[in-house]
């Protein structure tokens, strides 16, 4: 598996109707099992790019190759079904994947345990905190059992303490499951903390404006000096890109 390409994007362009170009000549390939962070300021089309990879939208020009099984997606809002318990929400994903009824319950509980939520399995979304809801959403995304996991600013609405924990949780899940993860964020530190590779998108139109690889990814924390150092570098480049729009 390793070394293979999971997602290949070539000369991708996107415009909505007769509007301006949102994405222009985006080229990117993501290796199987790789953790890539897509970083950019508002309006850089990172969510658009993610929707295109997810197959929720179609490119105007260019091509996107994703694994035939498709991709699981996690959004900024947990978007759990409010009438279902945490377990039933995960079971819904299993059901839509075609898992037999008898196997669903056990598998759902196992997935909830993966995100340390076994005790909250019978709770409904409104009884859970924001971080817990996102963990249920993560378990639900894992339940889809797709090789690629797309995440659209999934932790943006959480408080800093919870976000830190979820970073650790996500990293652990990634190492355990070997999923290919594309993580969209506008938070430079988050990108530097999580990614094996950080891809910076410029704004209007969105293009790949820079790439950073991180050699040593284990043991990173949001406050680690190497994360801070990389953040400074990326921020500089990001500001340069933003300034370009002033002229």
């Amino acid at each position, binding site marked *: 598996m390793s*070394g293979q390409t999971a997602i290949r994007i070539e000369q991708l362009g996107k415009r909505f109707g007769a509007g301006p170009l949102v994405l222009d000549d985006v080229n990117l390939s993501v290796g199987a099992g790789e953790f890539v962070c897509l970083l950019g300021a508002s309006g850089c089309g990172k969510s658009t790019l993610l929707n295109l990879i997810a197959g929720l939208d179609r490119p105007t020009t260019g091509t996107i190759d994703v694994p035939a099984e498709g991709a*699981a997606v996690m959004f900024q809002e947990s978007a759990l079904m409010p009438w279902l318990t945490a377990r039933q929400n995960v079971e819904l994903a299993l059901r839509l994947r075609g898992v037999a009824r008898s196997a669903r319950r056990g598998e759902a509980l196992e997935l909830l345990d993966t995100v340390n939520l076994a005790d909250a399995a019978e709770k409904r979304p409104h009884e859970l905190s924001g971080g817990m809801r996102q963990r249920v959403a993560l378990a639900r995304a894992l339940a889809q059992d797709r090789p690629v996991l797309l995440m659209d600013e999934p932790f943006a609405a959480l408080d800093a303490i919870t976000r830190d924990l979820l970073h650790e949780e996500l990293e652990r899940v990634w190492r355990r499951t070997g999923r290919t993860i594309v993580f969209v964020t506008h938070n430079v530190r988050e990108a530097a903390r999580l990614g094996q590779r950080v891809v910076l998108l410029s704004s209007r139109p969105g293009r790949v404006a820079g790439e950073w690889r991180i050699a040593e990814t284990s043991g990173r924390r949001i406050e680690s000096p190497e994360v801070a150092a990389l953040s400074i570098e990326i921020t500089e480049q990001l500001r340069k890109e933003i300034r370009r729009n002033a002229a």
Partner: protein
Amino acid sequence: MPHDENSTAGRVATQERIETLEADTEIPAPDLDTRPPSSGATRQANDDLRSLEAGLDRLQTDPEHAPRAWQRFTTSVLPPILFVLALIAAWQLYVVIAQPRPDIVPGPLDVLAAMSQAWESGRLQTAVLTSLERGVVGFLIAVVVGTPLGLLLAEVKPLRRAVGPIISGLQVLPSVAWVPAAILWFGLTDATVYFVVLMGATPSIVNGLIAGVEQVPPQLRRVGTVLGAGRTRLATLVVLPAALPGYVAGLKQGWAFSWRSLMAAEIIAVGGTIGFGLGSMLQQSRELADIGGVLAAVLVILFIGILIELVFFAPLERRMLRRRGLLGGTR
């Protein structure tokens, strides 16, 4: 291999601290999947994370307290009962002080007497049973007709644009207006009554369902699609349950309209093979200039309307809203 492609993709900012690694050394092998972490250090770290998360979860959630029976009684059952008692007391006081003509303003006791008289003769029981049966059956027919119609209109946009305004218009039209036509079409039979009830209740149910479907957050549909639901399963597993609050509100209103339309139909259409309902009883008392009987019938009609709401719709709605966290606390 993908790395070479990456470096050509876009402009790669060259930084001295960037080391390009082979993917093979970086990426965890997928077959680790089911195996628990083996080394003691990782297990330690996992346990740390676990307890940390458990602590934070505990801090960020409050255990929900189910409202106690006594508390519910004092906050939601007692106030209306006290109010009604006060109303009756005021009424009695007025009758005692002002001494109005008893054939125009009877006292509460006169109305009670009229009610027990109707009960003893068996007319009240017959009327209540007849009306309730028709009301419930008519309402159920309206549900069976209105639900697929509402779903169809909610999901097929062009159809909704064409038919929607008419349905909303029908909701404004008092269903009594259908009584003369119904009598001409069906004669003085039960069909007339059911037709009027149907015309009264269906628009509410249809509108409730459409409103419910329209208020389904687009997020949930998107998630359903992402999870792999096709059109049918999206409708049955996501859209319908999400639209339930609007649908139940529509049902509640539909029942109110059913009951009202039924009474109107029973007052106007008397005789033939139409049975003896509460509306008929009301009309009969009017013909006998029996104001006590009229008020007794009005009170019974009101009471049954409230009773159905209290024992059926209110618990249904409360349970549904509480499950979804749409009910603010215990109040």
